[in-house]
């Protein structure tokens, strides 16, 4: 009799857990979460900072907690190395529970590190829920030379040369070089 009661409790608990998960996932097994972004295209220059926002909506009938949003960056071309850490220093966000029918918006601050065409997207997941990816934001970054390196050489050589000459002149003056020169000139005169 006790075994039957214990089995009933286990079955009931399993049903409740599965039910809650199913409610979050939706009746057909898909997640009740959706991710949208405020823009699909971004065009910028190398080295510039840019921002976009993603909104995570819970269309299920129960609140969902323990969600983690993750920002990803990849290049559409294979020959460009992408280190997402360089693009954004805060790529993982731990979200507060989203009530049934509620939503939360995240602002992502990024920096254009490489030139080319890149895909940026946000994924939301939790321990219980499979990852849900948002639409891709296509980022087109144009190359630019940030500095005109040619002009630095006169400056980089000129300032130390000027200070060096002043220092040398002062040392020679202290050593009496100029005074000796004048006295020699006076002798000749």
């Amino acid at each position, binding site marked *: 009799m006790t075994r039957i009661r214990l089995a009933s409790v286990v079955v009931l608990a399993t049903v409740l857990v599965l039910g809650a998960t199913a409610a979050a996932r939706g009746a057909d097994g898909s997640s009740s979460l959706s991710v949208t972004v405020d823009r699909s295209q971004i065009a910028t220059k*190398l*080295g510039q900072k840019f921002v976009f926002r993603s909104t995570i909506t819970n269309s299920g009938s129960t609140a969902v907690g323990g969600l983690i949003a993750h920002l990803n960056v990849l290049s559409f071309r294979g020959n460009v190395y992408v280190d997402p850490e360089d693009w954004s220093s805060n790529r993982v966000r731990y979200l507060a529970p989203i009530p049934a029918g509620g939503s939360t918006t995240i602002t992502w601050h990024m920096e254009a590190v490489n030139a080319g065409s890149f895909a940026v997207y946000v994924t939301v997941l939790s321990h219980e829920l499979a990852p849900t990816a948002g639409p891709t934001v296509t980022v087109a970054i144009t190359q630019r030379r*940030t500095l005109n*390196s040619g002009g*630095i050489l006169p*400056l*980089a050589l000129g*300032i130390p040369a000027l*200070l*060096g000459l002043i220092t040398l002149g002062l040392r020679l003056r202290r050593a009496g070089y100029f005074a000796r020169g004048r006295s020699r000139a006076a002798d000749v005169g």
Partner: protein
Amino acid sequence: MTPARPRKGTSWAVVFGQELRDLWMGGRGLVLSFAFSCLLSVIAFLVATNKALNFLEQREAVNLTLQVAIAVGTLLALLAAADAVSGERERGTLESLLLTPVSRFEITVGKLLATLSLWFAAFIITVPYAWFLGRGISIVGETILIGLVVGTVLAIFVASLGILISVFAASNRVSLSLGLFALLALYTPTQLPSSAQKGWAGELLLRVNPLTAGEHYVGKVIASSHSWSEDLAWLISPFVAAVVFAAAASILGARFIRLRGGVAG
């Protein structure tokens, strides 16, 4: 004919003028400034030409150069300050200085102001580099102004620290070694991994340390385009340190400058 006795309250200006002459006409200031300009030239040349660095945003290039200028400029002020009293003592000129009708407080103030001239020279040398690297994006004026304000505050703090060490050091070598060690120790938190700098303890360390707090503030305004008021709290420790250490150097200098170094005697 005896030289005119300086008016009461202006004796520090006489000491200041004499120290300036010793520093600049003696050639030490010019040699240090020459070395500083060589370093800044290398940094600016690498920032502008190195392909690995050329992807840097222009603001970051200006920020890097300004931060190096502030760090090394304050180091120059420290070198001069650490020599101010212990150097005179070792060269045997402190006795004649103490016999002049100038109070020890005014001697300390005059010496402190003279050591700051090295920072101002370093700052003037930095201006053309900042202009070259920052032209075209309208940050040259902002860079010069923030460099002047934050750099001067940090230079006052570091030079006062150097004077304090110099007053109590038993020898000039000890004074210079302790000063350099203190400056390196103050810059150590910048070498912490970024994860350690982001925790509450790491951030507290960066905020309390005047040098790291000042450099952080400069970085936020120049590289991250923050407004001057946005991170103003980061300037609390540099300003407090400058006021406290300048007061301590003046007061303790007036009390403890003597012919033999050390606390006792």
